[in-house]
C-alpha cells in the first residue's frame, strides 16, 4: 500500500531548521556581523523595530540576521522577546519639538522657522544601480566644512497653525494614561492612543497600501504635510529619588504631522489633523499612518476610514501568521467540506463526474 501515515515530529522539525540555517552558510562567504547589519541595513532594522514595537537597534540587527533579511519575521522575533520582559517604568511624555532633527522638510510652507533640512535622503537621487558600490568605503562628507554649532530646537510647523486656531484637536488629547494595546485587548470604539499604538506597530506595507487607498480615491483624506522629521527624541524618566525628569537615552524616530482640508465635515471650518510616528527611519510608514489617523478620526464608509477594519488588518504579525497558517494540515476540515459538497451535489442530482456544484461550502478554519 502506498499510503504512509503522516508522522513527523521533532526530528523533522529539527532537520527543517538545519536546512534553513544551511542557507546562511552554503555560499561559503564571510558571516554577516551584527554590527554590519545594524550600521549598513538601518532601514531594515528600523522597520523591524517599528513593527516589533521595541527600540533596540542591536537586537533588531540580530533579528534581521536570524530572519535572513525578512523584516516581518524579524519584527516577530522582537515582539516575542519583548513580551517576556518586565515592565519597569513609563517614560515622561516628550514634546516633538525636543527632537534633535537630522532631517526636516515642510511641504506646507516654502520657508519655515528653522528652515528646511534635507538631511540624509535619496529622495532626489536618480535610481540607477550603482556598479561601483562594492569596494566603496570612503566617507563622501569627510571634506565638508561645517560649523560646530550646537543644534537648535526647531519650532513645530504645526504650532504655527495651532497658534492661529486653524487646526482642530483630535479626540483623546486629554487622555491622562495612554492605553497599552500590548497589555489590554483593543475593543471598539478604541481610544485614540490605542489607534496610534496599533498604527505605529503596523506593517509598513499594509500602512502604505491603506494610506494610499485614501489618496487613490477610496477615502477623502489627501493631506498636506506640515512637516516630516527624522531625528532623535530624548527618553526621559522620573528620577526615583528626586522626582526630577532625567534623560536616560534617546531613540531615532520618524515623525510627521499632517493637516487635512475636509472642513466640509465640520461645523467649524478648521483643518483636521493626522499624526504619524515610527521608530527609526521610515518616512513612508509615518506618512501613511498620518493619513490613516486622520481618516479614522473623520470616519466614513471607505475601508481606510473604518477604525475596526484598519486595526483588524494592519498588524503584520497577525496577518503574517494567519495567512501562513493555511500551510498547516487541514484534512479534518477539508473532509467535512467534502462531505457537504457531495451531499449538495447528490441533492442536486449530480454524479461525481458532472459539472461541479458551485455552492460555497465554508468551514471557517
Amino acid at each position, binding site marked *: 500500500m502506498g*499510503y504512509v501515515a503522516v508522522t513527523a515530529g521533532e526530528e523533522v522539525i529539527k532537520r527543517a531548521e538545519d536546512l534553513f540555517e544551511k542557507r546562511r552558510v552554503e555560499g561559503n562567504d564571510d558571516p554577516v556581523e551584527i554590527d554590519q547589519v545594524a550600521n549598513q541595513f538601518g532601514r531594515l532594522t528600523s522597520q523591524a523595530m517599528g513593527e516589533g514595537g521595541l527600540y533596540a537597534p542591536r537586537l533588531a540587527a540580530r533579528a534581521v540576521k536570524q530572519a535572513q533579511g525578512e523584516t516581518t519575521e524579524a519584527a516577530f522575533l522582537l515582539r516575542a522577546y519583548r513580551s517576556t520582559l518586565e515592565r519597569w517604568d513609563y517614560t515622561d511624555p516628550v514634546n516633538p519639538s525636543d527632537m534633535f532633527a537630522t532631517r526636516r522638510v515642510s511641504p506646507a510652507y516654502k520657508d519655515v522657522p528653522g528652515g528646511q533640512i534635507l538631511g540624509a535622503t535619496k529622495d532626489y537621487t536618480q535610481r540607477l544601480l550603482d556598479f561601483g558600490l562594492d569596494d566603496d568605503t570612503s566617507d563622501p562628507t569627510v571634506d565638508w566644512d561645517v560649523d560646530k554649532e550646537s543644534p537648535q530646537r526647531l519650532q513645530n510647523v504645526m504650532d504655527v497653525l495651532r497658534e492661529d486656531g486653524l487646526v482642530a484637536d483630535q479626540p483623546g488629547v486629554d487622555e491622562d494614561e495612554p492605553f497599552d494595546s*500590548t497589555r489590554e485587548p483593543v475593543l*471598539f470604539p478604541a481610544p485614540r492612543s490605542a489607534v496610534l499604538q496599533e498604527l505605529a506597530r503596523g506593517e509598513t506595507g499594509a500602512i502604505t497600501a491603506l494610506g494610499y487607498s485614501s489618496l487613490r480615491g477610496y477615502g477623502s483624506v489627501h493631506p498636506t504635510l506640515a512637516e516630516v522629521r527624522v531625528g532623535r527624541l530624548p527618553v526621559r524618566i522620573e528620577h526615583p529619588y528626586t522626582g526630577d525628569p532625567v534623560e536616560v537615552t534617546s531613540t531615532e524616530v520618524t515623525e510627521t504631522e499632517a493637516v487635512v482640508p475636509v472642513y466640509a465635515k465640520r461645523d467649524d471650518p478648521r483643518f483636521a489633523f493626522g499624526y504619524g510616528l515610527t521608530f527609526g527611519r521610515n518616512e513612508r510608514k509615518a506618512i501613511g499612518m498620518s493619513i490613516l489617523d486622520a481618516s479614522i478620526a473623520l470616519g466614513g464608509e471607505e475601508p481606510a476610514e473604518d477604525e475596526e477594519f484598519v486595526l483588524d488588518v494592519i498588524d503584520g504579525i497577525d496577518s503574517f*501568521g*494567519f495567512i501562513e497558517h493555511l500551510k498547516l494540515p487541514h*484534512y*479534518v476540515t477539508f473532509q467535512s467540506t467534502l462531505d457537504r459538497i457531495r451531499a449538495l451535489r447528490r441533492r442536486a442530482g449530480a454524479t461525481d463526474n458532472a459539472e461541479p456544484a458551485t455552492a460555497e461550502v465554508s468551514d471557517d478554519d
Partner: protein
Amino acid sequence: MTEDDQAADRSGQAPDSFAAAANAETSDTSSRDSAAGNSGTANSVDGLLASVDDDGLAGYNYAYLDEHTKREVRRAVLKAIAIPGHQVPFASRPMPLARGWGTGGIQTSLSLLGPEDTFKVIDQGSDESVNAANIRRLADRTADVETTTDTTDASVIQTRHRIPEEVMTEDQILVLQVPTTDPLRKVDGSDDANRRRHAHKNYSKMWVYLYENVVEWGEIQIGAAYPVLVNDRYLMSPSPVPRWDTPKLDDADTLFLFAAGREARIYAVPPHTDVEPLAFQDRSFQVERFAEACRFCGSRDTYLTEVETDDGDRLFACNDTSFCEKRQDNPEIEKSHHLDRSGVEWGPPPARGGDDA
C-alpha cells in the same frame, strides 16, 4: 462549581522550580536559581544579554509566560466558565509561535499547566503533526511537564480542530485552538456589531443565513465549525471541529476551553452544559458519514479522512491516530474502555439506514 474549583486550584499552583532546560544551558545560574518569576532574569543587563545569546530557554520564566500574564489568562478562563459561550477578551501576548498557529491555545495551556500535569497536543487528530510537535516541545522545554500521546493519560490536551474519540473525563481539560471566534462573522465582518448582537441574543441574521442555505441548496452547507447555541444563551463557534465532534460538547464531563491568540478571545463550555447545534425541525443537524470503515483498524464509529495513495487508491483512515493504534491492537476496544461505566454517549449516534447521506 467543580470546574471553577479545578481551575482555581491550578491557578494556585506556584511554580517552585524552573524548567530543567532553563538552568542546564547556562553556567552563570547563581543569579537565577533563587529567583522566582522573571524578576530574576531582568536583574542585570548582562543577565538579559546572556539569555539572548543562549539557544536554550534560559532566562525565561516557568511555562514561558510571566506570572502576571498567566494569572490574567486564568481570570479570563474563569470568567469564560462563568458565562458559558461568551467570548471574553484578553490581552493576548506575542508568543514565539506564529499567530494563527495555536498561540491562544498555548497561552491557555501554559497558564494552566503545573509540573504535575501530563500534556497532550494534537493537530487535526495527530500527535505527530509538526505543529503539534512544536507546541508540545515548547511546553516540554519551559513547563517541565510530562507529555503523552495517549488521550486517557493526559490531564490537559491542546487540540486543533478535533475532539478525541475516547471519552474525556471530569479530570481532564480540553483546550481548543480557535482561528475565528465569532460564528456571526459569516454574516457580518464587524466584531463590534456582533458583540451587540450577542448582548441582545439577536441571532436573526444567522437564522436567515441558514434558512437561505436551505432554500438555495436544500440543506445547510456549513462543514466544520458548525454554530451551536450554548446554555440556551450564546451562539458559539465550536472551533473548526467537524460536525462529528460537535455532539461531544453537550452535557460532557469535561471542561472545554476555546482560545484565540490572534483575535484575543477566550471562551468556555463548562461540564454538563447544554450545547445545541442550530438546525430546523425539518432540516436536522447532520454529521459527516463515511461509506467505508477505517482501512487500518476497521472502525465504523470514528471520524475518518480519505487518503489518496500513490497508486491511485482512495482509502479511509481514522483521524484520531492515537485511538486508531489502540484499535489496531484490539479491535473490540470501546471509546469508553477506560471508564468504570459503559454506554457513555460521546459523539454522534450510530448511522441509521443511510438516511443522512
